């Protein structure tokens, strides 16, 4: 399994981090401590994992088995057909492709606009820059719930209600992403581009051939954060999307669960939940280094 390591962003190597052993601490007391920690962590770890496990197991049960007490842990027979049945009842492929379309296109847009904006804030000196940057910082403070109604009204004026445009276009711009890119680009030494400038390179050449290649790690961080944000988003799609064929996965999942109030096919709901959770867990496990780095850097920067 890959590892979450926060050490990448630390200046100190983590080799000699305290292990809790005092001056009298022997190897033995350290081991006892580790054993205790292991016990506690395992207990908590079970609490963390059981909901996932339960979701997967339920997705293979029959409806009768779901409604039994005491619950059967393992299904008497693994019904892979549940997954096919979900497919018959709701347009899973549509949900999936809607989610993917929105998440991928908006993420690419964010990468482009944020890196351009970040470059402008970090590497070019011009009047008005700092004022505009302050404006950006202030918009980061506004919670989404505060602007959701005006934003809905705007989408309505644009004729984008019940259209994927409403999910993609407002998502193409991110003050937070611009901020992240700016912070990273500020750290790139000025000398690198001075040589290029002497050679007569314009800003766009410097941006595309010198700065951007150096920004790969922060671009990866921004990409994974944006993608997950769009993939998981629920409130905004709930507001602007109503037709079934345009629903994203969270919306389709919520609709499927609430469609029939009393006799929800919970085994099928769980199957759809598995389908929606799997890609994001995979992306996290593949890109966790960048994801964790993003959390940690924004966290520590924010703390200072």
């Amino acid at each position, binding site marked *: 399994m890959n590892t979450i390591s926060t050490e990448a962003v630390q200046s100190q190597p983590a080799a000699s981090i305290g292990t809790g052993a005092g001056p009298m601490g022997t190897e033995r007391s350290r081991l006892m401590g580790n054993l205790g920690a292991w016990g506690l962590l395992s207990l908590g770890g079970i609490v963390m994992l059981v909901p996932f496990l339960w979701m997967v197991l339920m997705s293979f049960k029959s409806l009768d088995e779901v409604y039994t007490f005491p619950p059967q842990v393992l299904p008497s027979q693994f019904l892979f057909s549940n997954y096919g049945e979900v497919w018959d009842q709701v347009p899973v492929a549509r949900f999936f492709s809607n989610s993917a379309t929105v998440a991928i296109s908006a993420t690419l847009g964010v990468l482009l606009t944020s890196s351009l904006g970040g470059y402008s804030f970090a590497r070019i000196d011009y009047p008005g820059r700092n004022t505009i940057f302050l404006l950006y910082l202030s918009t980061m403070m506004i919670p989404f719930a505060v602007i959701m109604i005006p934003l*809905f009204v705007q989408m309505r004026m644009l004729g984008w209600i019940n259209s994927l445009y409403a999910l993609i276009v407002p998502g193409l711009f991110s003050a937070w992403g611009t901020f992240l890119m700016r912070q990273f680009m500020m750290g790139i030494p000025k000398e690198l581009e001075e040589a290029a400038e002497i050679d007569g390179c314009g800003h766009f050449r410097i941006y595309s051939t010198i700065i951007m290649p150096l920004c790969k790690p922060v671009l990866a961080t921004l990409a994974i954060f944006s993608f997950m944000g769009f993939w998981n988003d629920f409130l905004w799609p709930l507001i602007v999307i109503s037709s079934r064929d345009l629903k994203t996965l*969270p919306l389709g999942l919520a609709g499927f669960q609430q469609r029939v109030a009393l006799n929800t096919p919970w085994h099928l709901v769980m199957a759809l939940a598995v389908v929606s959770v799997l890609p994001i867990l995979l992306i996290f496990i593949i890109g966790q280094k960048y*994801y964790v780095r993003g959390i940690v850097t924004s966290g520590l920067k924010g703390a200072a």
Partner: protein
Amino acid sequence: MTGRRRRNLIAGYAFLIPNLLGVLAFSLFPIATTIYLTFHEWNLSDTPVFNGIQNFILMAGDSLFWKTLGNTFYYTFVAVPVAVFLAFWLALLLDRKMRGVLSFRVIYFLPHVTLTVAASIIWAWIFQAEFGLINWALSKINIDGPYWLTDSRWAMISIIIMSNWKGIGYAMLIFLAGLQGIPPELLDAATVDGANGWRKLRHVKVPLLTPTIFFILTTSFIGAFQAFDQFMIMTRGGPAFATTPLVLYIYQNGFAYFKMGYATSMAAILFLCILGITLFQWSVARRWVYGFDMDN
């Protein structure tokens, strides 16, 4: 040099313009509209009617507004401190050098990356009164479990439990980064001076972690004030508005009753609450956050 300055001016704005237009259109313009709508009554189809501060007067007499605002406060001020407290101890455990610790970190973090909608659906079933896991476990020790999600005394607690399951990994990770940023020399020096594990925690780690605690508290409060998904999925705000947070009430007023002006006014109040709490935290920070003045 003026040629260069002009070039920078043009390039600066050229690079910024796509981004700036977007932020103007989808952040600043909606903020301006918010201010406009708070002074109007609007049902979305007719033209908005100016009504002064009528929305706020209405709000003052709306018992559901106060109830849902109270729910938001209850949720925030219970869920966040509990999560931060648990995450702190969890991070201390995960900071040890031992076999398997890296896998544990991933496990504790997984819920954070899961879709809230999916996590809420799973937990809705775990809390299910007749066939759910929790009441089954309780029945093993002869406890007749409550109707978690449909009992007004337990519904909010259920949602808080689910939210902390989901959120603890995030706070844990930031604590972990904070812990790993503590210079090892300091801990070694404390060891030489004869400090035991507890004293090192109390007098070295905790003081140095106060900026981290401050950061987690401020961001978590802001996030908790806006929580929506789990309420919508697990209880739909019920029973009898016991778990309707203000955001859900705003959503209902806007998109079910089409009281756009009223809903927006409540959103403005929500913003003021968040702003107030954040400013309050900043103002008391220098009393307890290590190095708060130096950093600013």
